[in-house]
């Protein structure tokens, strides 16, 4: 059988060799812990602690600010230092709760859990929501909202996004190898919400060892299967992944549920397992530290709120001063001004590069070569859309399907003229979407 995939996409150097063989190691943070109130899409969480309060690990410090929101939990025991404006990894200053870590990690008493079979649908969803679980691949969409489509009976596929198509990142890879059971258990929880659904683990074929491991773990699970995907970026983009697995295509005005699908990534499914089966809130995640400026790249189990500098120190520090620091993957991650920002629910990696490829390659004139068109997974014309964006011609931008862009960055990557196509299209898209909402 051929490998499942989509049309377009790129094959950058995957850089995973630096960290893929490094087992997950826990980091015990020493400095202050910082918890942004907004680590998800939707309303920021509301603080429920004040300066001077003593908190325990696993204690709620901010409650959900609405239905589309998520609570935040302390990942250490210690004293609340206050509410401060701090940089988050995406480079904006946001309201954060700062906690002085007493280094004792005393945990709160968790509510006892019932076996999955005895829980009702609402009880399961409440557990997931109350644990603060959000989409941990990068989008940060509250998991409960995603798992509450209008017609649950019409969901046919739960797709575990095990593609990890971003170069360098190996956090999901290690999770699949080392926490296979928790991953499968998370899938079991989600399947229990959708009686008519099958659960597919969609793995890129450069991670065959993971596919084998999962296959062995689901031998007795008739509703689950493993699907091998072609190794290609952006294979893990939600629309492209759904298409590869089900041959159903959704556009920008549709939701995965319209194609009978729900997609959750590896880390999210493990968080769902922790929330529902172990009854514990989301306080940690696995983060890859890599890049050519890092002394010994690796994968770390990190308590949320840990400063990125502590991660870099845990990976042996820098071999030479990097030009660029990235939170997330090199294709869609955010360039960080400083390492002084906390790990949040959506931080999958921190990468440090000696050279900044963007600064090294100044933009030149488009030669109309069409490489951006060939690789665009949305099948639109990035070079023309970028022209409209530069001229701020919103009408033409929308007419030429600019809103269909998934901002994967494949166009900017291949462009021989080194144009910042995704940047131009992305900012125009934001404006156009905002204007569309106003209407």
């Amino acid at each position: 059988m051929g490998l499942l995939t989509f049309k377009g996409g790129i094959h950058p150097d995957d850089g995973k060799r630096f960290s893929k063989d490094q087992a997950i190691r826990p980091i015990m943070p020493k400095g202050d812990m910082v918890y942004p109130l907004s680590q998800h899409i939707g309303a920021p969480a509301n603080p429920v602690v004040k300066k001077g309060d003593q908190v325990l690990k696993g204690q709620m410090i901010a409650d959900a600010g609405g239905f589309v929101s998520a609570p935040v939990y302390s990942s250490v025991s210690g004293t609340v230092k206050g509410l401060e404006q701090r940089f988050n990894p995406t480079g904006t200053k946001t309201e954060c709760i700062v906690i002085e870590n007493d280094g004792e990690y005393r945990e709160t008493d968790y509510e006892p859990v019932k076996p999955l079979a005895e829980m009702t649908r609402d009880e399961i969803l409440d557990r997931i929501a109350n644990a603060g679980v959000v989409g941990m691949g990068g989008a940060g969409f509250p998991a409960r909202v995603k798992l509450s489509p209008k017609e649950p009976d019409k969901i046919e596929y739960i797709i575990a996004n095990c593609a990890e198509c971003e170069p360098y990142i190996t956090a999901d890879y290690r999770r699949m190898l080392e926490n296979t059971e928790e991953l499968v258990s998370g899938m079991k929880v989600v399947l229990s919400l959708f009686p008519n659904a099958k659960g597919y683990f969609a793995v890129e074929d450069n991670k065959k060892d993971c596919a084998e491991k999962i296959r062995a773990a689901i031998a007795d699970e008739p509703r689950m299967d493993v699907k091998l995907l072609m190794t290609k970026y952006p294979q893990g983009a939600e629309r492209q992944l759904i298409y590869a697995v089900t041959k159903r295509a959704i556009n920008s005005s549709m939701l995965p549920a319209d194609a009978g699908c729900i997609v959750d990534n590896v880390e999210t499914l493990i968080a769902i397992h922790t929330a529902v089966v172990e009854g514990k809130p989301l306080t940690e995640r696995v983060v890859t530290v890599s890049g050519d400026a890092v002394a010994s790249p690796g994968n770390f189990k990190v308590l949320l709120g840990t400063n990125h500098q502590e991660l870099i120190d845990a990976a042996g520090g820098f071999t030479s001063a990097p030009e660029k620091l990235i939170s997330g993957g090199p294709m869609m991650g955010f360039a960080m001004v400083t390492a002084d920002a906390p790990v949040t629910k959506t931080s999958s990696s921190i990468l440090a590069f000696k050279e900044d490829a963007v600064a090294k390659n100044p933009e030149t004139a488009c030669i109309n070569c069409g490489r951006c068109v060939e690789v665009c997974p949305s099948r639109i014309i990035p070079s023309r859309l970028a022209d409209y964006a530069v001229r701020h011609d919103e009408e033409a931008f929308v007419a030429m399907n600019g809103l269909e862009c998934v901002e994967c960055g494949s166009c900017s990557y291949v462009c021989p003229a080194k144009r910042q196509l995704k940047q131009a299209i992305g900012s125009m898209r934001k404006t156009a979407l905002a204007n569309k909402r106003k209407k």
Partner: protein
Amino acid sequence: MNENYNVSSSPHIRDKAKTSNIMLMVVIGLLPAALFGIWNFRHENAWILVVVTTAAAVLSEYIWEKLMHKPITIKDCSAVVTGLLLALNLPPTLPWWMGVVGAVFAIIVVKQLFGGLGQNFMNPALAARCFLLICFTGRMTYFVYDGVTGPTPLANLKAGEAVNTMDMLLGFTRGTIGETSVIAIMIGAMFLILMGVIDLRIPGSYLISFVVFIAIFGGHGLDPQYITAHLCGGGLMLGAWFMATDYVTSPITSSGKIIYGICMGLLTGLFRLFGGSAEGVSYAIIISNLLVPLIEKVTLPKPFGKGGEK
């Protein structure tokens, strides 16, 4: 902790392919035809025209950008490509200063006046060739081989005379400097295909539609000798593989490339069979260049999720 690392929008990595690398590969792809032409027309000292025309193209780009206070872009090698292509489209006996006139016209009028690289709507080398053809018709249609003046094989073919297709394939015949040897052109074209610089859509649809047109209207049906002579004659191969495939002046859409190829095939056939001159490739390509915006408009791809995913 105030490191101030570089900040930019994602993606943070870039492919190795660069405009200058691509242009350099086109130059390398043109070398077999250029070197063969220089050797083939050694008695006519064709090398002088090739060197002077190419140098004039690069120099006029440099001087123009200097005068206009624009960044100097000669390092992207696009002017080398234009100059070399123009030279390969000139008869070996053309006075060198006419080559210079052509190069200046190509770079200044066709390319720079419209905004420089990427902005011209016609292939600069071909537009300059047509310009020279109108200005200096006599010299531009004066062909010599081994010291003997005479018609090109294509003119013979049009007059209904016999031609030696083997000589046309190898290149031992009259014509412009770079167009005579189909073998040399194909070696360069194969290189560009293997390097991923060009693909088969444009040249393929061009040549196939041309053959179909010739077979229907040529009066010789599917006679292989006649069709081979047409394929190997004139500027068809050089045009189809190196000038029709010019990124800037061809459609960006996938199906648009095929329609564009068909347009050129039909126009070339029309000009060659029913036109006043034996040759028609240059005009077919630059007229098709003008149709590109229209072709792109009608071949706009469907986006993913609206039918374009297949």
